[in-house]
């Protein structure tokens, strides 16, 4: 049925065409790097383009980083879904990557001031689990709602909330680790 979904708005169709012309090779490259199979990669690209068609009205500039992130997110998740389907790997609990601790609000209040290190935390979060950086970005920077994220990533609403909650917890843990590291350095320096 998904192949019957078509864009009937000429502006959106032209935008999707521009998107395809500009990024079709990148999409195929990302799909191939995950699936390592031309047929599966083609399936992933087709499905990704149809998913992009659903969000094309939200794309303001096809060359901006937001659009690139959307394409990477869609293609990567679609390819991973195909891979799992082929390997008959159930989704399982994707969120058990690391032990999570609970941190008091007061504690994170003290260290959240270190915004200048945002790039570092974004990288670290993506290293720990790329899906966490991805979902925080989709929710707070791209401003997709839970339903849109659920469709985009092909996961349940509950999984969206769980993943988001764990992404925040991991980020807080990274913040605490960094803060402890800096405190230790400060003590060593005798400050």
């Amino acid at each position: 049925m998904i192949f019957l979904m078509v864009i009937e708005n000429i502006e959106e169709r032209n935008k999707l065409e521009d998107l395809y012309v500009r990024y079709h090779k990148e999409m195929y490259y990302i799909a191939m790097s995950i699936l390592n199979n031309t047929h599966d990669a083609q399936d992933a690209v087709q499905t990704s383009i149809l998913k992009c068609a659903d969000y094309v009205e939200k794309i303001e500039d096809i060359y901006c980083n937001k659009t690139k992130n959307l394409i990477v997110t869609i293609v990567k998740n679609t390819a991973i879904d195909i891979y799992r389907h082929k390997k008959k790997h159930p989704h399982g609990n994707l969120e058990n990557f690391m032990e999570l601790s609970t941190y008091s609000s007061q504690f994170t209040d003290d260290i959240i001031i270190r915004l200048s290190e945002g790039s570092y935390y974004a990288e670290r979060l993506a290293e720990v689990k790329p899906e966490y950086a991805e979902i925080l970005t989709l929710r707070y920077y791209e401003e997709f709602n839970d339903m849109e994220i659920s469709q985009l990533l092909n996961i349940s609403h509950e999984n969206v909330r769980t993943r988001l909650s764990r992404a925040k917890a991991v980020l807080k843990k990274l913040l605490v680790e960094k803060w402890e590291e800096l405190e230790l350095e400060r003590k060593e320096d005798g400050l």
Partner: protein
Amino acid sequence: MNHKDGSDEHEQMMESFYRYIGYQHIKNVGKEFDEISELAKDIEYPKELDSWFNDYLEKSKKAEMRNKRIIFIKRLAKRVAMVTLVLGIGLTVMTFSVDAFRIKFLNLVTDVTQRYTGFQVVEIEDHEAINIPADWNNYYLLDYVTNGYSFDRIQEFGENKIVFYQNSQGDEIQFSQFPNNNSFQVDTENAVTTEIIINGNKGTLVEKNGLLTLIWYNANHAFYLMGNIDKEEIIKMAESFNVKNE
């Protein structure tokens, strides 16, 4: 209360931080994407995907055109329905209020088939001798009746009025009249039909097995006259029709 305010403030700060992390993540992805673009430049891209995408765009265009056509047809149908309604009402009003139009319209309708022809009847008689019902208005009678026949009886079916004449052998002549909004059929299969003018009104004479039927119209009524009599006599009787009680 203060604790709640502090909690809200903390949550807002965290959301700003998450947004900032999102911004940084997108910057990182953008950089990685540019690297991917470099790597993907020389990748062998399957032509099937290009064909599929072109087909997809074509389907989209066709779907758009189809929807536009459907919308256009719906709009057109509404307009046609409205025009038809207005025309229908207009024609009806013209047909039943303007004599010239009504006659043409009725002539057209009564042009019928090979087997049947539409017609209408009238009778005449010495109206003094006929016992006319008190509720008859604007009816027609024949001032001339062929020799040997005399008034026998009247029959009334709705708006259709029939006067019967009879001779001593029991042969009958019928003169029928009814308003123009009625219709009827006459058996003209293997019959000889002749166009006749009755007092300036178009009529048809049908001869079949010795039985003559003369049908004609005026502005308000249709008439038929039917009997086993001579052609000249039936025409003469028809030409003597006159409106009464007007």
